[in-house]
C-alpha cells in the first residue's frame, strides 16, 4: 500500500470509529420523557408563567420529565428552528410565527392536534374562534394552536402631541376624525418640533409585512385570497404606497430610512405595533394612550399578528407533547396566558377577562383595539415559501425608499419578481 493509501485507510478507519460511536438513534429512553419547547420570548414574567404551568402539569404526569422552554432570539427564530430540525435536534413543541405558518402547516412537519384537543376533558375545543384557527388548518385538521392573536394598534405619546399643538387621537376619535390624513398631520407637526412623528415599529424599511397595518386602510393586499395573484400593483396598493411615500419624504411624518427611533423611550409621537408591547410602557414618564388604527379611504380596518403552538410530528415524545399542549392551552391556562397573549377563545375575549390580565390597559382600549380588532381583522400576509418571497419583495421595494422614487414603477417591479414565484403555487 502506498503511503497515501495508508493515510486514506487510516482516515477512513477513524471516521468509521467516530461515526459508529456518535451515529445512530439512541435507544428509546426509559422513565420520564423530557419535553422541549422553542419560544421567542425571553421575558422573565412570560417564562415564570410557563414554568408554573409546566410544574403543575408534572404533578399529575410522572411520565413526563423536565419541561424546558428554549428561548431563541426573535430575529432569527424560524431560521434557528429549521436549522435545529435539519440538524436532527428538533424540539418537541415549537412556537410558529404567522409568516411561516403556511410552510409549517403544508409541509407536514407538525402533528395533527384536533383529535387530542377535542377529546381532552374540559378543553372546550369549539370555543376556539374560527377566524383565529384559520391560518393553522389544512383539510379540516388543526396543526397548531393560535396561542397569541395580537391586534395592531397605535400607542400615542399624548404629551408630544399636545406640545405640537395638535388634537390627540382620542379627541379625534370622539370627533369621528381619526383617519390617516389626520394621523399624518399629527406626525408631521411633532416632527417639525424635533421629535419623530409616527413609527411603524419593526418595519425598519425591511420587514415590509408590517406595512399591512397601513395599507389595510386602502383595502390593499400583498396577494389575492388564494395567494396566486400579486397585489402590489393593484390600484389600492398604489394609492396606499403613494400616500405612505409622501408622508415619509414630503410631510416627514414618519422617520426616514436608516433612522433608529424608539417610541417607548419617548422619542416619537406614535407607533404602530401589537398590543403585547404594552409591557414596554412599564415606568413610562409620559402620558400615553392606545387607539385603534386610523380609518383609511376604505373605512375602518384591523390587522392582527398571530403565533401558533405546534407539536413536531417527528418528535420521539409527540404523544406526551400533544397532551402537554392540551393542558398548556386549556381554558384555565389560556386565561392565565391572556395576560400577555390575546387568546383565541371567544368566551375569554371579553373586556372583563382581558382587563383582569391587562391591568395597564383601560376597558375602552381593550374593547376598541383587542375585541373589535380580532373580530374584523385580517392577518398579516403569509404564503407558502414566505421567506424567499419576503426577501424578494424586500429587495424589490428598496428603490421605493428614496425621495425621488417612481411608486408605480417600483410596485410593478415587485409583481414582476414575485408573480412567477406565486403564480404556480
Amino acid at each position, binding site marked *: 500500500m502506498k503511503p497515501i493509501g495508508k*493515510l486514506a485507510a*487510516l*482516515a*477512513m478507519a*477513524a*471516521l468509521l470509529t*467516530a461515526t459508529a460511536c456518535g451515529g445512530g438513534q439512541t435507544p428509546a429512553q426509559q422513565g420520564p420523557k423530557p419535553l422541549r419547547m422553542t419560544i421567542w420570548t425571553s421575558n422573565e414574567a412570560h417564562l415564570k408563567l410557563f414554568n408554573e404551568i409546566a410544574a403543575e402539569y408534572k404533578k399529575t404526569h410522572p411520565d413526563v420529565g423536565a419541561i424546558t422552554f428554549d428561548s431563541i432570539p426573535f430575529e432569527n427564530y424560524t*431560521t434557528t428552528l*429549521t*436549522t435545529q*430540525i*435539519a440538524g436532527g435536534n428538533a424540539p418537541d413543541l415549537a412556537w410558529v410565527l404567522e409568516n411561516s405558518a403556511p*410552510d*409549517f402547516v403544508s*409541509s*407536514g*412537519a407538525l402533528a395533527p392536534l384536533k383529535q387530542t384537543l377535542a377529546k381532552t376533558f374540559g378543553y372546550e375545543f369549539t370555543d376556539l374562534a374560527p377566524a383565529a384557527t384559520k391560518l393553522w388548518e389544512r383539510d379540516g385538521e388543526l396543526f397548531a394552536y393560535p396561542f397569541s392573536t395580537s391586534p395592531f394598534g397605535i400607542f400615542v405619546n399624548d404629551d408630544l402631541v399636545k406640545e405640537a399643538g395638535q388634537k390627540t387621537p382620542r379627541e379625534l376619535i370622539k370627533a369621528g376624525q381619526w383617519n390617516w390624513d389626520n394621523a399624518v398631520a399629527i406626525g408631521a407637526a411633532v416632527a417639525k418640533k424635533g421629535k419623530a412623528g409616527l413609527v411603524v415599529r419593526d418595519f425598519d*424599511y*425591511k420587514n415590509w409585512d408590517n406595512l399591512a397595518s397601513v395599507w389595510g386602510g386602502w383595502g390593499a393586499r400583498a396577494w389575492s385570497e388564494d395567494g396566486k395573484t400579486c397585489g402590489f400593483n393593484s390600484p389600492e396598493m398604489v394609492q396606499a404606497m403613494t400616500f405612505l411615500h409622501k408622508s415619509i419624504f414630503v410631510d416627514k411624518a414618519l422617520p*426616514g*430610512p*436608516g*433612522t*433608529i427611533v424608539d417610541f417607548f423611550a419617548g422619542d416619537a409621537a406614535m407607533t404602530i405595533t401589537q398590543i403585547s408591547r404594552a409591557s414596554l410602557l412599564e415606568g413610562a414618564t409620559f402620558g400615553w394612550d392606545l387607539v385603534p388604527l386610523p380609518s383609511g379611504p376604505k373605512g375602518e380596518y384591523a390587522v392582527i399578528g398571530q403565533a401558533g403552538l405546534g407539536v413536531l*410530528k*417527528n418528535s420521539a415524545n409527540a404523544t406526551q407533547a400533544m397532551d402537554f399542549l392540551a393542558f398548556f392551552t386549556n381554558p384555565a391556562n389560556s386565561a392565565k396566558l391572556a395576560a400577555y397573549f390575546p387568546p383565541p377563545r371567544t368566551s375569554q375575549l371579553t373586556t372583563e377577562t382581558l382587563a383582569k390580565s391587562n391591568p395597564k390597559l383601560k376597558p375602552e382600549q381593550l374593547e376598541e383595539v383587542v375585541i373589535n380588532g380580532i373580530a374584523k381583522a385580517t392577518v398579516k400576509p403569509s404564503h407558502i*415559501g414566505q*421567506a*424567499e418571497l419576503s*426577501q424578494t419583495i*424586500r*429587495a*424589490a421595494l*428598496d*428603490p421605493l*425608499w*428614496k425621495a425621488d422614487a417612481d411608486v408605480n414603477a417600483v410596485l410593478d417591479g415587485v409583481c414582476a419578481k414575485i408573480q412567477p414565484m406565486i403564480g404556480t403555487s
Partner: protein
Amino acid sequence: MTLTRTRETAAHRAVVSPYWTHRRRDNLVGYLFIGPQLIGSALFVLLPLGLVLWYSLHEWNVLAGTFEFTGGDNYAKLLNDSNLGEVLGGTAMFSIGLVVFNLSLALLLAVLLNQRLRGTTFFRTLFFSPVVVSLVAWTIVWRFLLQADGGINGLLGTIGVEGPNWLRGDATAMVSVIVVQVLKNVGLNMVLFLAALQGVPRQLHEAAQLDGAGAWRRFTRITVPLISPTILLTSIITVVGSLQVFAQIAVLTQGGPGVSTTVLVYYLYQQAFQFHHFGYGATLSILLFAIVAALTLLQWRMRRKWVLYES
C-alpha cells in the same frame, strides 16, 4: 563468546518480532503523532466536504423531512438562476475593491511606519488593534456610525456637508461594507508587510541612492521585488478571505439595498438557511469552493512571473 551471544540475541529478537522493524516503528510513531489532527480533519473538514457534494445532488426539505435524489437538478438551477449574475457581480466588486484597497493601504501604512520616527510603535498598535476586536462588535458599532443620522454624518455636518444615507444607497452600501472590512483587517497585512520591509537590506538602498535612484525608483525597483513573496501571501489570504465575508453583510445591510451587497456566501446562507433550499445551498457552496480553488491556483501559477527571491 561475547560475539556469539550478541548474535544469538539479535537472532532471537528477529524471530520474536519480525514485523516490528525500526522503520515500521518509526512509521507507527509518526502516524500516532499526526493521528489526532488527521481524525479531526477527516471528521470536520473532509467528511463535511464530501457531504456537501452529496447534498448538492439532493432536494432536502427540512420541514417535510424528505431527502430525494435529484441528480444534476440543482446544478441546472444554478445555470438558470436569474439572481446569480448579480450576486457574482456583487461578489467580484466586493473582492476587487477589498483586495485593492486593503493591500494598498496596508503597504502604505507599512512604509510609513517603517520610518525611524518617534511614535511609530503607537501607530503600529493603533492600526493593528481592530484585528483583535470581535468582528460582530466592530460591525455593529459601524452600523450605528453609518446610520442616516449617525456619527459619520454628524461629523460631516459640522463641516457643512450633508452625508448620504450610507447603508441604503446602491453604491455607498458596497463602499461602506468594503471600508468597514478593510479597517478591521488592514492591520494584519500591515504587520506582514512591515516584517518584509525590515528584511530589505539597507545597503541595497544605499547603493541605489549612490547610483542616483530617487525614492520612487528605489521603492519600485528594490523594495517591491524584494517583498513580492509577502505580496503574494497577503493577496492570497485577502482574496480567499474576501470571498468568505458574511457577518459584515448580515449585520450591516442584509444583502441590500436590492441585492447590491448580496455576496455569494450571503446568498448561499439565504438559500440554505432562510429559504430552506439546503440542496441548492450546497450546490452554491460547491461553486464557491471551485472559485476559491481556481483563484488560488491562478495566483500560485502566476507567482513565477512576478514573485522574485522566493526561498
